């Protein structure tokens, strides 16, 4: 980008903030200032005003002007443990010691709590009690939306000429966000069906067709009736505000909203790697069927036997 174009961008930025625009232009037009001086004035003003008006101005944009949200992103909070407020506590697997303990975290929900119907609260309690083996994350199931976006692993956004693709490191989950051809979900899936559009600088995605899934390790959940509305807004080149409204009349009294920042992974080496977690889930899913365990559970001694 040339120096002139930088100035242009900054001027556009200045027009948005509430400082004396007329004063700036008066200064700019003063005959005694050279272009260099004008540049310095602008730079100083931008430097001073920058922190106040970073939103929507100093963000990367695509050629056609839309925010460029391509890149690798990750949450940095406790939401995957519990969307609601959580004091630290023993984890679901005591044998891991402090490694498996639940860290503390504040709620990421507006209003603090999920407005469950009473019957659904019972389900959450049952989920929580069985979380060591029944949490879909423990089983390496695709995490669904919105959970995929706040798991403690990165995901990558690709903005193509038409649609947007989001690829998640966890379980290699992936979804296409259809930007033009909006149709109702033709069938249910773990990552649902995503129809997206831009509302000024905010990417809005409506997700439906989701299989029933958990929202976190605490057993919070939605059903196949869930409708998720996501809003992605670049705050700075490195911060994405992620806001999600969850509607599911089967289990909630009313729609509720999550809000959190997502952080750009800025290290040069950042990339997604394999996390094919099926093999890490087989112990909790199938170990009762290993030859050794199966016959031990039946009280049959097979020591010394071959399996043929």
């Amino acid at each position, binding site marked *: 980008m040339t120096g002139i174009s930088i100035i242009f961008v900054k001027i556009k930025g200045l027009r948005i903030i509430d400082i004396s625009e007329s004063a700036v232009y008066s200064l700019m037009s003063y005959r005694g200032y050279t272009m260099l001086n004008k540049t310095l004035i602008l730079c100083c003003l931008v430097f001073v005003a920058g922190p106040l008006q970073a939103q929507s101005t100093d963000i990367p944009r695509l050629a056609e002007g839309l925010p460029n949200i391509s890149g690798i992103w990750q949450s940095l909070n406790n939401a995957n443990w519990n969307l609601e407020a959580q004091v630290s506590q023993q984890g679901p697997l005591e044998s891991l010691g402090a490694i498996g303990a639940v860290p503390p975290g504040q709620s990421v929900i507006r209003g603090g709590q999920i407005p469950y119907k009473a019957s659904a609260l019972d389900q959450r309690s049952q989920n929580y009690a069985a979380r060591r083996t029944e949490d879909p994350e423990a089983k390496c199931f695709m995490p669904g939306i919105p959970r995929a976006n706040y798991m403690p692993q990165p995901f990558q956004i690709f903005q193509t000429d038409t*649609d947007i693709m989001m690829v998640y490191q966890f379980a290699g989950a*992936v979804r296409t966000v259809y930007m033009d051809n909006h149709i109702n979900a033709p069938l249910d899936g773990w990552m649902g069906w995503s129809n997206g559009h831009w509302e000024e600088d905010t990417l809005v995605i409506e997700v439906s067709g989701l299989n029933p899934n958990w929202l976190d390790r605490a057993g919070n959940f939605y059903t196949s009736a869930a409708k998720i509305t996501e809003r992605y807004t670049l705050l700075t080149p490195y911060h994405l505000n992620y806001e999600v409204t969850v509607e599911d009349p089967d289990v909630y009294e009313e729609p509720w909203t999550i809000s959190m920042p997502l952080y750009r992974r800025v290290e040069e080496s950042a990339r997604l790697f394999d996390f094919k977690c099926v093999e890490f889930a087989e112990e909790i899913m199938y170990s009762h*069927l290993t030859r050794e365990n199966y016959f031990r559970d039946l009280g049959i001694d097979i020591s010394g036997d071959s399996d043929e």
Partner: protein
Amino acid sequence: MNRIHTFGSAFLTGACLLSGNVLAQSESWEMPRTSWGDPVIQGYWTNSSLVPLQRPTALGTKEFYSLEEYRENLRRAFEGETDETQAGTAADVHYQFDDYLMNRTADSIAPNLRTSIISNPSNGRLPEATGEALEKLEAYSVWREEHQWDSANTRGLSERCLIWGQEGPPILPLGYNSTYQFMQTEDYVILQLEMIHDVRIIPLDGGNPAKNSLPQWLGNSRGHWEGDTLVVETTRFSGRTDANGMRGVSLDSNNHVIERFTRVSEDTIDYEFTINDPTVWKQSWSGVYPFKAIDGPMFEYACHEGNYGIENILSGKRREELDRMEAAGQ
């Protein structure tokens, strides 16, 4: 899971589409381009094919079928597919092929007159394996005989929904779900494979694929455009996947694959590949086939989430062992 044409229409249209692997293209066709000027390969594609990886030995160096031979092959393949769902046969104890569109004759196919996908060596067959590979193959065979029923993690990778060997690279047609969604930006090409919902993220910086890498199931890929051809270089595989046709002979950093994707018409991408692993094969080998455009969307393949196969296979084996013990009076 998409239909561009059924067996019947493939039978009829194949004739005008085929000229070996280089398909006829309209003179008026112009390469579609992205907003930044690269050829558009974004879209939905299939490589579903009845062309085998290796040429039947009886065909020698015959590289292409005649149109009449191709039609006859399709007819026989059609009969073969329907045989698999014939009531009262062992083969019938399976999915309903037609219900799940696993019958290739009911699905889209990418017509191709070739007698084999392999184009080099000239006999259309995999080159001779190294002694090291053959030793591993034999050792795995012995191990498998003894341990394959022990637990989930001694079962095959595809049965466990970890990966299918044909995912490659090189990408090879599967018996079903040979569907792909390609996406592209100025900096990346993203290849999503229907099978296992696996995704290959390919940076287009043309750099060394081993740089900034970890061993990966589908290797580490880097790409670049050579004119209108996307060239993708891949190495540093995980050591967990098998060489073609050789279970237990794993592919790792010694394996090196070059793929070339060239869009040659509105509905065809020519795909060429060369694979070289001197620890597995005594020479490199190459293949070629077309990807055919299909209508989207591509649906989610949630294999592990619905995998009742592992549970049933292991519990069936345990029951069999228990029955045998009881019969022996234990």
